[in-house]
């Protein structure tokens, strides 16, 4: 492979305390060297960085690539192109495909497909229960062996507490992190949005905050019982931020993630019955939005994860209570996160680890970052670029987003995976 020289950039990896101007040379898919005096071969491909920000590639712990089974919504090729355009160099994909990723053959399919078609690295997450049915354990050991980095019944909450306890005990033995999607299925039954003044006004059945809180509390207690690594997906309520804060103070192996839509929007976005504001967990109140922001700022929440969930037009262009839950999120993740910096919630030094080193720590993986000899997974960002998001100009097969037409500052303008330019 030809060498690449990314010239004149701000090389930025706060986790490794790197913040310097200079050039970065990629050779053989790895970071060869960086700094103010970088040598290069004559035939190297030169990228003029114009002083922009070069960070380690982003890692998304939570996405739905819909492949296999729902390729009309997304597939590994389109989903990872969208991820690359969002600056992600690794995405984890949830198990609610068809067939469900509850056995090694499905994991292998995903990895083979990714090897052939993906723009970025794809790390599958296996199911906890067979068919996501919450009845018996999937082969967690074999899933890990086949390449799954964690297990989760995301999309469905494992309502059987004994099975969840078994899963956590068993997963602990194999050192597999358990990612929990927390919505009490009985409390949220028929709910289509946050329960509150807005749902009352709209006549839409609500999902109370407590539907999330009770399961987060349960799973934290089960983590204490089993000592298993527990990661709480898409935290949406002030109550669960507080529960995770206390679990961490107690020293339990518990982590959590915040999604851009939950730290950006509130349930007011549902007014006018906009199905693009319908997701699960739902958009919550202002106090909850604030709590998620605070949780990211003070380290209670470990990372930003997109919950990229593509849906076809026919799934969304229907009555609100009938519409599918979820929105696409790869290409809006960074600009939405950067709003937190612009608004003074986070510094850039805190934001970048939330999308790079900290998600890896959640999975128990070591972080290499911008080190000489590390894989050249890189993201180039123009922090000053003002632009308008149009889903149609993006790479996902789906366009279900509440951020259509939003004006953003900060844009990903280049992405490299192991030295290969993928965006």
């Amino acid at each position: 492979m030809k060498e690449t020289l990314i010239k004149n950039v701000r090389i930025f990896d706060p986790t490794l305390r790197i913040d310097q101007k200079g050039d970065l040379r990629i050779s053989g898919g790895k970071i060869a060297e960086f700094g103010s005096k970088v040598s290069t071969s004559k035939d190297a491909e030169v990228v003029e960085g114009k002083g922009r920000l070069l960070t380690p590639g982003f890692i998304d712990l939570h996405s739905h690539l819909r492949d296999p089974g729902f390729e009309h919504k997304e597939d590994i090729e389109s989903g990872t192109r969208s991820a690359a355009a969002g600056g992600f160099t690794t995405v984890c994909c949830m198990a609610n495909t068809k067939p469900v990723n509850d056995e090694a053959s499905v994991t292998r399919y995903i990895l083979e497909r990714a090897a052939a078609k993906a723009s970025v690295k794809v790390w599958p997450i296996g199911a906890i229960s067979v068919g996501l049915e919450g009845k018996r354990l999937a082969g967690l050991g074999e899933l890990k062996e086949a390449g799954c980095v964690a297990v989760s019944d995301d999309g469905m909450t494992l309502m059987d507490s004994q099975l969840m306890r078994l899963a956590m005990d068993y997963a602990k033995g194999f050192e597999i992190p358990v990612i929990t999607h927390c919505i009490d299925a009985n409390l949220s039954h028929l709910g289509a949005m946050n329960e509150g003044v807005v749902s009352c006004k709209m006549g839409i059945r609500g999902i109370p905050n407590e539907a999330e809180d009770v399961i987060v509390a349960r799973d934290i207690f089960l983590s204490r019982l089993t000592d298993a690594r527990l990661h709480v997906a898409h935290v949406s309520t002030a109550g669960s931020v507080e529960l995770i804060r206390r679990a961490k103070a107690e020293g339990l192996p518990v982590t959590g993630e915040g999604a851009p839509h939950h730290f950006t929007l509130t349930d007011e976005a549902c007014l006018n019955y906009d199905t693009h504001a319908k997701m699960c967990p739902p958009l919550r109140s202002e106090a909850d939005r604030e709590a998620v922001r605070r949780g990211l700022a003070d380290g209670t929440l470990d990372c930003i994860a997109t919950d990229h969930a593509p849906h076809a037009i026919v799934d969304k262009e229907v009555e609100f209570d009938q519409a599918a839950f979820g929105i696409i999120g790869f290409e809006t993740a960074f600009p939405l996160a950067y709003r937190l910096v612009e608004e003074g919630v986070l510094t850039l030094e805190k934001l970048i680890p939330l999308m790079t080193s900290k998600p890896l720590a959640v999975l128990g993986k070591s972080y290499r970052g911008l080190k000489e000899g590390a894989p050249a997974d890189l993201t180039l960002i123009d922090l000053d670029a003002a632009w308008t998001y149009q889903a149609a100009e993006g790479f996902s097969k789906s366009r279900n987003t509440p951020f259509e037409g939003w004006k953003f500052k900060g844009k990903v303008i280049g992405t490299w995976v192991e030295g290969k330019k993928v965006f």
Partner: protein
Amino acid sequence: MEDKRPAFRHILSMADLSPEDVEFIFQTTDRFREVGGRAIKKVPALRGKTVINLFFENSTRTRTSFEIAGKRLSADVINISKSGSSVAKGETLLDTAKNLEAMAPDVIVVRHPSSGAPQALTRILQARVINAGDGEHEHPTQALLDLLTIRDHKKKIAGLHVGIVGDIAHSRVARSNILGLTKLGAKVTVVGPKSLIPKEIVSYGVSVSHRFAEVIEDLDVIMMLRIQTERHERLPFPDLREYSRFFGLNLQILKKAKKDVVIMHPGPVNRGVEIAPEVADGPFSLILDQVKNGVAVRMALLYLLGGAETAAKVEE
């Protein structure tokens, strides 16, 4: 008759109507009331106009009321129900609506089990839309006819104390009436078991009671709601007998009420559950006045949305 243009394009929610809009609708209604008493119950106001009643849920009163209202105005009224339409073949609401739109109706009256369905239609249709009940959201024409009926009998709305009793959480009638009544200055108390009253309801400026017997003596108007067992997979109260005992309106509890209290019910009535037959048929009951006023109010709305603007244009 001097025509003025309505300030509203559709009738979707009582939240969209100002007190002046409601007054304007009532003035228009007054012009149509006597038509129902004529030997020939027809005026030419909407001749050549097309009204489509698009009903995705069962209805006797509302659908018939809109149909009669349209026909008394000489509109061509077409009724479409879920079972006899392409909806049963899997067509989406928006496709159905777009196809109907291609046939150039002037007003589409829609009832739908999903909250917000009429709003969705207004985003894609040129036709005027009247919400004839959407899910658990609103039923604004019911509220308008209820307000009119109260005003007919009490000569005012401001200052009255209205009790709305029953399944507040899932009632579109309750929501629309709360909005309308509070807007016009009435005091509203919602009454029911706590499991049927969302705590956010106080954001509408209403009082809440879980003891019917304790508030009934202060009420000028009692509006009973139907217990909608079809909306519940799991009843939010033990059983109908217990519900009826604590929240039903019977002759015994009625003794505590004011002497000039009036009783309303949007129908259909579950006799013996939320209201005893003797009360429904008794002297305080306005149930049939509500139905009668329903036709006149809907004539006014169809006229204002379907015809008034054209009439105004002709005069220009």
